[in-house]
């Protein structure tokens, strides 16, 4: 590609991607009246922190944030462990029915949450898990694990056989070979898998909306939906909440995106 075209493309993409973020952030620093009367469009005048302070002190947002973080961490842990174990077994252990299992994982991933949310609700209610984060700890892995497993199958497949074989010939058991030899090598894949699980969990809305009613146990997406009172939208607060919710994930990514892209390569391309 020519230099000019490349730069034009770069600028275009930058604008497309960054402008919406800027719009929200900018509005988060405006007062209700500024937004209502469109008094200062591009740069907030006066610049105010009241939406942030109001959000933190007047709403349950801090609680929701905590709930989202806890849920995402727990689900990520469960998902990574289950997916790593299953992914390794399918990728590296030759057992009868191996291909069938791989197919099942693919199929299972494609069962839509929109199909399962009603009966899943009843199942969770019978387990007594509804109206608490436990409902999410149990239900979120249903979509994170299949995807992460599929990803890790591809990733494990890409690792050379020799090291493991060497360990096995040396008399180590499968499990030891797995833990000592393969896992460290698969670190990028595991990180990628963990980040996917975290993101999917952080984003999830439908299950959290349906399974949890207690306002104190909500996650951020559902809480934000709730902040829309109906008659008086606290627009500024909603914007502030959006900014706050996005920052940690962005920070996490800027730090780790390199690993993630590698994970996508190994999983997405090969899988």
């Amino acid at each position, binding site marked *: 590609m020519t230099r000019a075209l490349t730069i034009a493309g770069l600028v275009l993409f930058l604008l497309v991607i960054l402008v919406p973020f800027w719009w929200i952030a900018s509005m988060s620093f405006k007062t209700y009246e500024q937004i209502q009367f469109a008094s200062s469009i591009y740069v907030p005048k006066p610049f105010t922190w009241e939406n942030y302070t109001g959000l933190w002190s007047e709403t349950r947002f801090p609680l929701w944030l905590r709930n989202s973080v806890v849920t995402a961490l727990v689900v990520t842990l469960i998902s990574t462990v289950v997916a790593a174990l299953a992914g390794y077994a399918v990728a590296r252990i030759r057992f009868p029915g191996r291909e069938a299992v791989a197919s099942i994982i693919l199929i299972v991933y494609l069962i839509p949450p929109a199909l399962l949310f009603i009966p899943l609700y009843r199942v969770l209610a019978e387990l007594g898990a509804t109206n608490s984060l436990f409902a999410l700890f149990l239900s979120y892995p249903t979509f994170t694990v299949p995807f992460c497993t599929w990803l890790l199958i591809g990733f494990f497949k890409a690792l050379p*056989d020799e090291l493991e074989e060497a360990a096995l010939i040396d008399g180590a058991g499968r499990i030891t070979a797995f833990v000592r030899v393969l896992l460290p090598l698969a670190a990028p894949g595991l990180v990628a898998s963990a980040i996917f699980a975290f993101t999917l969990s952080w984003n999830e809305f439908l299950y959290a909306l349906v399974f949890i009613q207690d306002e104190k146990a909500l996650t951020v997406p559902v809480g934000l939906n709730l902040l829309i009172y109906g008659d008086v939208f606290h627009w500024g607060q909603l914007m502030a909440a959006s900014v706050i919710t996005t920052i940690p994930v962005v920070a996490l990514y800027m730090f780790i995106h390199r690993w993630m892209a590698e994970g996508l390569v190994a999983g997405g391309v090969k899988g």
Partner: protein
Amino acid sequence: MTREAGALALGAPAPRRRRLGRQRNRDLGTAALFLLPLFVLVLGLIFYPFYRAVWLSFTDKLVGYPERFVGLRNYEYLAQDDAFHQVIRNSFVFTVVSVGLKIVTGIGMALVLNSIIRGRNFFRGLFLLPWITSTVIIALTWRWMFDAFPGRGFFNSVLLDMGILRQPIAFMATPEGAMMAVIVANWWRGFPFFGVSFLAGMASIPRETYEAASVDGAGAGRRFWHITLPGLKHVIIVTTLLSFIMTINDFNIIYVMTRGGPGSATQVFATYSYQVAFQQLRWGRGVTISIFLVPLLVVGIALISRYLLREGRGK
């Protein structure tokens, strides 16, 4: 068909190795152990609810009342329900257009990133921002971008301010406009994933192939059509499949942006199912709506599997 897909997921079989019989048995045991958590999860929280969903679709379950078996009544009702026909149309329009746009933009993004060397990682990370943002926030963001209320709507504010518009445009007030708005939101969120995948795909095309083509006199355009695109075929198919399935199931973006409106202009499977189940309290019918999607998905997977198989054989 799908077994082959599974086989392909595993890649070509490794060359035969010596296997001690004892190791074999231990392997089976280990495999079973490693697969146990997945097995429990899939059985208990996916297959079992799926089975119950199917059962529920044959009942007239109404919240608060015990269910009664009614056979295919829900299916028959939906088959002739004009609202459901619209849901099917909307879902396909939404998914096909959105995925199509994502493919094209993804290729563009990959080409751009591929052309820069310094700072590539930085930009790649930056461009992934939409993909990692919560979809609820993205839905709210784009709702505000298209808002007709000048203080909130980006496009209206800018266009009014620049004098291009005298009155704000209500982008989301018409069926076409609302559909466009939700497509834009979905596209914006999704194309970075395509871009990054394609970029990685491009990296695996050997440099020599390009160099040889240049030497033979092929220009940038021809190199793109005859080397880049074919080389990306596998990635494109896989990414498109994933995105198609995620998009046609989408709830968040449409629910938060338009609630399926105006009227039923942007009502899709997931939002309609939710409305019927939780506002009209008809769970039997609500579940049936989603089950209609299953055959479509099965067909989709089968088609893609066949494609992968053909390609695999060709190699």
